[in-house]
C-alpha cells in the first residue's frame, strides 16, 4: 500500500504542548466535534462497520480486530451493555498509555463516547493501574470538565443519550491487565481471570455483555471515526493497517514513545528513532513486545518488521509494543531470573500449572544465575515451560513460559555454561585417576566491569 500522505503522529501529536490535557486545548483543535456530529445521528452499526473496515486491531497485546470484537456483542439480552477500557498497563516495557492519560485524556474520552454510542452502552468503566497517579488525577479532571460541558452524563450533546463514565483505580496487580481479571477487579473482588467462553462480549462484567478495549485502541477509534476507514488504511501493511505507539527502552540513546506506521523495520526503530545503541555496546537481543514476548536475536532483528504478522512468523509477537534492547554486556541468566521473578510474583495463584510453574522457573533461573545448576536443569527448564503452556485459565502461564523457551532456544549455550555436574555424578563418569577436586563451573562475576547483573537478589519484597 503506497503512502498517500507522509505519516505524522496522530495520537501523540499534541503531547509536547503545554496544557494539552485541558478541555480548552482539546476543543481548540477540534475536539469533541466528531462525537457531537455522530452521537445520536449516525447509525451505530455503521460506526462498527467503519472500525471493522479500518482493520484496527487491539493495541493491548492480543491484536484482535476491534470492529469484529464489537460486532460480537450480545444483543437483545435485556441486560445493559458495558464498555471497560483497560488502562492497567502493567506489561514491563510498556508505557504508552501513561502518555495518553497524562497528556491527552480528552481524546480517550471522546473515543469512549463514540465507542459507547457505537455499541449502545450507557456505562463505561476506565480501569487504571493504581500506580498511575498523575494519570488518574488528569483523567478524573477531564471527566469532570466533560461532564460540566454536557459531553458526559444525562442527555449528552442534547441527543437523548445518557452516558456514565467511571474512572477506577487498581492497586498493583499485573493480572488485572488481563481482560477478565480486570472485570473481576471492577466487580470488587480479587483480580482472578475467568474461564472463556463465555467471552466478555457475551457475559462480562456483572454478567452483562461487555466490550474490553485498550486505552490506545479507544484513542485511535476517535481518530478513525473522524477521518474514515480509508484514511486509517493508508498506513501499515495489508493485515496490520494503521499506526501504533511503540515504547523504546533499554540500551538505546533515545528511549521513549514513538508513534509510527505499522510495518517499519525493527532496525529503523532502533537506529533512527532510538538513535542507535549506547556507545561502546553491541546488540545482543531485543524483546519486541513487552517482557512476555519471546526475544529476537540480532539476525532475527534484521529480518523483522514491526507488524503483527512479521513478528508472529519469527516466533514472537508484537504484543503491547514495548521494545527493550539488551546490549552485549547484559548477563542473560540474570535477565532470565529477573523475568521469572516477575511472573512468579504476579501469578494470581488460581491455576496450579502457573502458580507452581512460575515458582519452579524462578528457582531454576536462580540456580543458573548463581552458577549452581546441574546439567540436567537445562532440559528441566524446557520441560517445565512446555508443560505450563495452554493449561491455564488465562495466558499468564504462557507469558512466563514463552520468554523462557525463547531464551533457551536462542541462548542455550549460556545456560549450559552455568551448569556443572554434581560431584557424585562426575565421579561416576570419570576414571578414578582423572577426578579433579572441584567441579567446573562459571558463575556471574558480581561487580565485574563488563557484565551487567540484573538479577536483583532472591528476596522479593
Amino acid at each position, binding site marked *: 500500500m503506497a503512502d498517500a500522505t507522509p505519516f505524522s503522529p496522530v495520537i501523540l501529536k499534541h503531547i509536547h504542548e503545554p496544557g494539552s490535557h485541558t478541555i480548552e486545548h482539546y476543543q481548540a483543535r477540534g475536539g469533541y466535534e466528531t462525537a457531537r456530529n455522530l452521537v445520536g445521528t449516525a447509525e451505530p452499526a455503521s460506526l462498527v462497520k467503519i472500525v471493522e473496515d479500518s482493520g484496527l486491531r487491539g493495541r493491548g497485546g492480543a491484536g484482535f480486530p476491534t470492529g469484529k470484537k464489537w460486532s460480537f456483542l450480545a444483543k437483545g439480552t435485556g441486560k445493559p451493555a458495558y464498555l471497560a477500557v483497560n488502562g492497567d498497563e*502493567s506489561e514491563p516495557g510498556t508505557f504508552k498509555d501513561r502518555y495518553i492519560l497524562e497528556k491527552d485524556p480528552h481524546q480517550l474520552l471522546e473515543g469512549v463516547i463514540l465507542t459507547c454510542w457505537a455499541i449502545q452502552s450507557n*456505562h463505561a468503566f476506565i480501569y487504571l493501574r493504581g*500506580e*498511575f*497517579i498523575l494519570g488518574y488525577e488528569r483523567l478524573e479532571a477531564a471527566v469532570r470538565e466533560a461532564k460540566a460541558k454536557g459531553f458526559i452524563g444525562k442527555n449528552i450533546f442534547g441527543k437523548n443519550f445518557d452516558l456514565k463514565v467511571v474512572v477506577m483505580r*487498581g492497586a498493583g496487580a499485573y493480572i488485572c491487565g488481563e481482560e477478565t481479571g480486570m472485570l473481576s477487579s471492577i466487580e470488587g473482588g480479587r483480580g482472578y481471570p475467568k474461564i472463556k467462553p463465555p467471552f466478555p462480549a457475551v457475559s462480562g462484567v456483572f454478567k452483562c455483555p461487555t466490550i474490553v478495549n485498550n486505552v490506545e485502541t479507544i484513542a485511535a477509534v476517535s481518530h478513525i471515526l473522524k477521518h474514515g476507514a480509508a484514511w486509517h488504511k493508508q498506513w501499515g501493511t495489508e493485515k496490520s493497517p494503521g499506526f501504533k505507539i511503540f515504547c523504546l527502552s533499554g540500551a538505546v540513546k533515545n528511549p521513549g514513545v514513538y508513534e509510527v506506521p505499522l510495518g517499519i523495520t525493527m532496525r529503523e526503530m532502533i537506529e533512527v528513532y532510538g538513535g542507535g545503541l549506547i556507545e561502546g555496546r553491541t546488540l545482543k537481543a531485543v524483546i519486541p513486545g513487552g517482557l512476555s514476548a519471546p526475544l529476537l536475536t540480532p539476525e532475527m532483528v534484521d529480518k523483522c518488521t514491526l507488524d503483527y504478522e512479521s513478528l508472529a512468523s519469527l516466533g514472537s509477537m508484537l504484543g503491547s509494543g514495548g521494545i527493550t534492547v539488551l546490549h552485549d554486556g547484559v548477563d542473560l541468566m540474570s535477565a532470565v531470573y*529477573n523475568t521469572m521473578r516477575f511472573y512468579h510474583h504476579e501469578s494470581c495463584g488460581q491455576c496450579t500449572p502457573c502458580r507452581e510453574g512460575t515458582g519452579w522457573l524462578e528457582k531454576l533461573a536462580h540456580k543458573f544465575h548463581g552458577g549452581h545448576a546441574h546439567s540436567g536443569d537445562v532440559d528441566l527448564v524446557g520441560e517445565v515451560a512446555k508443560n505450563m503452556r495452554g493449561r491455564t485459565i488465562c495466558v499468564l502461564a504462557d507469558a512466563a513460559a514463552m520468554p523462557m523457551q525463547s531464551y533457551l532456544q536462542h541462548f542455550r549455550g549460556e545456560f549450559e555454561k552455568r551448569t556443572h555436574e554434581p560431584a557424585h555424578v562426575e565421579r561416576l563418569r570419570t576414571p578414578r585417576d582423572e577426578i579433579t577436586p572441584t567441579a567446573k563451573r562459571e558463575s556471574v562475576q558480581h561487580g565485574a566491569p563488563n557484565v551487567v547483573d*540484573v538479577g*536483583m537478589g532472591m528476596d522479593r519484597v
Partner: protein
Amino acid sequence: MPVKTLSPERLKRFHDMVDDYPNKRSMLMMTLRLVEEEFGCINDEAMEIAADLCGVTPAHVQGMVTFYTHFKRSAHGKHRFMVCATLMCALDGNTDQALKQIESKLGLKPGQRTQDGLFSCEKVECLADCDKPPVVQKDFEHFCSMKGKALDDYIESLLKLENKTSAEYQNSSGVEMDLRISVLPSHYNFEGETESGARQFDDKDPYFKPGEAPRTTSVPPPLLTPLTAPVADGVNMNGAQHG
C-alpha cells in the same frame, strides 16, 4: 459496629460514587482508596469500615488487601519507598544504585522499615515508565530517573520534614516488615456479635443517605417446588417395607 467511621467529607465522596456503580461490592476498590486516604494506611479498622460500607465481609476485604500490593498497610513506614526492580529498570544497575542510596541514607534494605516506623523501602514490579530508569514511587509521588543527587536531595528533604538526620539511621538496622494479617485485630471488642458467634451483616446500612432506598441484594424467593426427588404414588416413605 466499627470503632471509627469515615470523616463526613469522605463519606460524602463515597455517597457521590454510589450512582456510578451497579452494586455496592463493585465500589470496594475505590472505597479502599478512601479509607487508605483517611487512615494513612489500610489497617484492620479500615478494613472493617470498608467491609461495612460495601456490604461484604471483613474476610473478603482482607483477601483484597493482601492480593493488591499497592495498598499501603500498617506495616509500611510513614514514608514508603517503592523501587522498580523489573528488568528494564534493573538494566545497567539503575535499581541497584537507587537501593544502595536509600540504604546509605536510611540504613534500609529492601523489605525493611526503620525502627521508628517513619521510612520503609521495598522492591516492586514495573511502574510503567521504563524509558527513564530507575523509577521510584514514594507513597503517591512518582519519580523517574531517580538516582544520584535527585534521590539524595529528596531523602534529605523528607528527613528535614521529620526533623531527623540521616546519621540517626545509618547506625541502626531496619526491621523486616511483616505484611501478614494478625489473627484478631488488637481492638477487637466482640461488640455486635450474636450468641451464635458470627457478626451480623444485614442490608440495614447506616451509611446511606436518609430517604434513599438501601441498595440491597435481593433474597431469592423460596422455591415453589422443594428440591426433593419425585416420589411415585403409593410408596410409603416411613420405612415400612411392602410385600
